[in-house]
Each structure stands twice: as C-alpha cells, then as structure tokens.
C-alpha cells in the first residue's frame, strides 16, 4: 500500500512539473524573457559603471555583490555543518 501510494504521488508530481515545462518558451528563440535589456546594460555600460575590464567580475562583485556574499556565506555554513558532524571534540583553545 505504501509503495502504491508513493508511485501515485510521484507520478502526479512529475505530471504537475511537466505541465510547467510545457508552458516554457522554446529554446533559443529571440523573444525569450531572458533576452531583455539587462544583457545589453551589462555588456555596454559595465566598463563605465564599475571600471573593471572583466565583465563577469563586475557582474558578480558589483551589480550582484550581495549574491556573492550569500554564496560565500553558504560555503561557510557548509563548513560549520561539516565541523558539527565530523569534528570530535574540544580543542586546546577553549577551556
């Protein structure tokens, strides 16, 4: 009974997600929502705005600096989690 209900729920969920996929625009067409003015803004204005020659660097560290901040925080949180799980005990610095 458990297996049958699991199969039914999984099938329903897959179908629900595939309905969402069916509504997506075709791959590579010009009128996709991703092809908006943001791309041109980055390519043409980033040198004047930030002064960095590397456009990717100016994107991730100036326009979207907080995204990178949260990314670094995610890495730090992963480190703390691994320390919590794997580290054995105290050290000579804490008393």
């Amino acid at each position, binding site marked *: 009974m458990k297996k049958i209900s699991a199969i039914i729920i999984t099938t329903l969920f897959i179908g629900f997600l595939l309905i969402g996929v069916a509504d997506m625009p075709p791959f590579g067409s010009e009128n996709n929502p991703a092809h908006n003015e943001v791309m041109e803004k980055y390519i043409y204005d980033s*040198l004047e705005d*930030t*002064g*960095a*020659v*590397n456009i*990717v*660097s*100016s994107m*991730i*560290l*100036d326009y979207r*600096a*907080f995204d*990178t*901040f949260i990314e*670094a*925080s995610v*890495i*730090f949180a*992963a*480190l703390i989690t*691994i*320390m919590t799980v*794997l*580290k*054995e005990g105290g*050290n*000579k*610095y804490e008393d």
Partner: protein
Amino acid sequence: MKTSIVKNVVKVILPLIQIFGAYVIIFGHVSPGGGFAGGSIVGSSLILYRLIYGSERADRKFIYFYLLKLVSISLVVYGTLKGLIFILEHLGFNGFIPIGVPGNLLSGGLIMPLNVLIGIVVSITFYFIATLFEEGELENVNGAE
C-alpha cells in the same frame, strides 16, 4: 606519499602554486579569474602542504583557531563594506571610491578588495573541509604542545 622525492618536488612547486593563486585573485578584475577560482588554487596548495608534510607541521603553521577567526572576519567585512557602499550610493554619495583607469591594477573601485576577501573565505574553507574528511579532526590531537 611522504618519500623525499615528493617532499623536494613539493618544496619547489608550492610557492609557484601560491603565487599563481594570489595572481588569479588580485588580477580578478582585469583578467579571467576571481575570488572563487583563485581561492580554490590557494586552498589546494594548503591541502597539498598538509598531505605531504604531515599534520603536526601543518598545525604549527596554520593554527585553525585563527584561520576560523579570519574567515568570519572576512565575511563580516565583506557585508559591512558592500552594505555601506549600497547605502551611501542610495543616499547620493556617488563616486565615493574612485574607479580609476580601466585596465590598471588599482581600478574598479571595491572589486579587488572584495575578491581578496572571497579568496580568503574559499581557500580556508576548502582546506578545512579536506582536513575534516581526511582526518576527522581539524588539528592533530596528539601533536606537539
């Protein structure tokens, strides 16, 4: 793993790896690279040092308590610096940090210091994760002192 051939080769190669990593981090805004890529290079050099020269010597060189503090301070400084600049630009203090001539090392405003901070966080975190998976502990328990 710890023969004298490997030790001598690593002695020559390790400074080159670290210089290359520092180059990738510091020149992240004028050439391909950046904090994440350069940080992984520096972190892999730290892992190599620990694998070859043993955990006691690495513990004496990289005291994990201070490295952990360095990571936390880097994250706090990143958030404070960028948040301050965001607020100041919102309030109308544009051009607070000069952009400089594009292509120079000292250009791009805050991008280079932020790259350095990201590099510190990524390198030390990779080193810690590799150490934990290898030994199950961040420092050698039976080590010196």
